[in-house]
């Protein structure tokens, strides 16, 4: 089969799965289903990254998001005792203003993207080697890299300080 056609079919399947999973994330009455459908949406985006030749980012996404962040979310759901199982009070009563804002945002973003880029093609399948990403991080982006690692450290310490029970009380 033609490579471009195969890529388009993969894109179609992955994007349909992602949009369906995202809709379940925002509409589900069951908190566990919402968190697990986020896994499906993020796994779809990892598939898209592989389609775009960004294997390292796809691997990091699977490790960090699906491996760690989702587990953290499940802990959050269980600790805060949101009613696991169906519950009626998860959403606001008035759902039309948010829907209108979301549709308007989509119309503006997608319309401007299509109007500006039309059908300009993305080049064929050649991957960026991981060594090039490493070289870029420690060459052009070394200061942002250090800053982001400091942010992560500060956030972890802050999380521990916030969530710890106060010893005096």
């Amino acid at each position, binding site marked *: 089969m033609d490579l471009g056609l195969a*890529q388009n079919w993969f*894109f179609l399947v992955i994007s349909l799965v992602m*949009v369906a999973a995202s*809709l379940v*994330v*925002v509409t589900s009455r069951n*908190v566990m289903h*919402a968190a697990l459908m*986020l896994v499906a*949406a993020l796994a779809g*985006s990892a598939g*898209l*990254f592989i*389609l*775009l*030749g*960004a294997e390292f*980012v796809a691997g990091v996404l699977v490790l*960090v*998001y699906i491996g*760690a*962040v989702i587990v*953290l*979310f499940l802990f*959050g759901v269980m600790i*805060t005792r*949101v009613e696991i199982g169906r519950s009626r*009070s*998860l*959403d*606001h009563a008035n*759902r039309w203003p*948010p*829907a209108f804002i*979301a549709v308007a*945002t*989509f119309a503006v*973003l997608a319309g401007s*993207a*299509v109007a500006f880029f*039309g*059908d*300009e*093609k*993305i080049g064929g399948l050649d991957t*960026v080697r991981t060594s*090039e*990403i490493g070289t*870029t991080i420690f060459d*052009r*982006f070394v200061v942002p*890299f250090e800053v*982001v690692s400091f*942010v*992560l450290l500060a*956030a972890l310490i*802050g*999380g*521990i300080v*916030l969530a710890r029970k106060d010893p005096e009380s």
Partner: protein
Amino acid sequence: MTIAQFLVLSAAMFSIGIYGVLIRRNAVLVLLSVELMLAAVNINFVAFCRFLEDTAAGGQVFALFIITVAAAEVGIGLAIVLLIFRNRASANIDELDALKW
């Protein structure tokens, strides 16, 4: 594959995330929707990195930065939600009206 495909998909996921942030009452679910929006931005970065044929992979590096910052955000966000839950016995954001007058 055209670049517009990826941009439209990312716009769809971003709008779904906005809807989720506005409609949900529970703080954990709001954070889940924020994750959707960040994932949409990541798709844009990687697609443009490929489209512009950036051999230094700057877009992918920025996607990695976003993943890191999102992990930090989830960690501290869930700690705050836990604290709110401990103080108010509820994680619904519309009940947090202490600063409203």
